[in-house]
């Protein structure tokens, strides 16, 4: 193991968490500030790409034991179900609802089905990016 990798690896551990935090922040801010599921998801993928750069695919697979194809399905499922949920309530497809709740300790919180939809987007983006990268990386 060469010294350059060591520097990079050490660095990556720190930076990885910064990026993940940042991406979660981007995701949650999306409805109000620039950001959202896309950028959040892409950023998370970026973080994992960094890990892949510093380590190797096998190691990263051990750290993050997801099947990313499954993540695509989950994400899409969340989005589709959120959108389709309105069918059950007899309102036009994709009608979002949102409300503000007072939750003890956290205070006034807004719950928005759009955020749920965006979560799906987030997962799909992460899933797709990493499926692609992982599949190419593993190919012969």
């Amino acid at each position, binding site marked *: 193991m060469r010294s350059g990798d060591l520097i990079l690896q050490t660095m990556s551990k720190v930076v990885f968490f910064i990026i993940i935090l940042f991406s979660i922040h981007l995701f949650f801010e999306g409805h*109000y*500030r*620039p950001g959202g599921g*896309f950028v959040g998801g892409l950023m998370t993928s970026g973080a994992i790409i960094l890990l892949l750069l510093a380590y190797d695919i096998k190691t990263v697979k051990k750290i993050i034991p997801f099947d990313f194809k499954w993540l695509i399905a989950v994400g899409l499922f969340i989005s589709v179900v959120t959108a389709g949920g309105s069918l059950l309530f007899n309102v036009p497809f994709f009608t979002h609802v949102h409300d503000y709740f007072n939750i003890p300790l956290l205070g006034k919180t807004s719950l928005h089905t759009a955020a749920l939809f965006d979560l799906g987007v987030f997962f799909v*983006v992460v899933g*797709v990016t990493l499926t*692609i990268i992982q*599949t*190419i990386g593993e190919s012969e």
Partner: protein
Amino acid sequence: MELLMAILIGFLFASATYLLLSKSILRMIIGTGLLSHGAHLLILTMGGLKKGAVPIVNGDGTPVTDPLPQALILTAIVISFGVTALFLVLAYRGYQELGTDNMDELRGTDGNE
């Protein structure tokens, strides 16, 4: 500014076309990249440039730029990313299987007889 952007977009489209007409798959993929840059800038330009603040609700009623083209571009960007990814993998699988990335050698005349 819109004039300048129109010229830039035209230039991007011209370059993209040139690349798409070349032999190497990789250059064609790069061409599609430029093509989508051009298209995205065009949407933005057509929405009007610099007509107000960032499209975030600010409460003070200052005019904001047209948010709709931005949303359209975002959709388009993500889609072209997906296409580019597939195209790239296609190129490499094609090279692996067909042994060339030269489009001139990928004619194919099946069923011509």
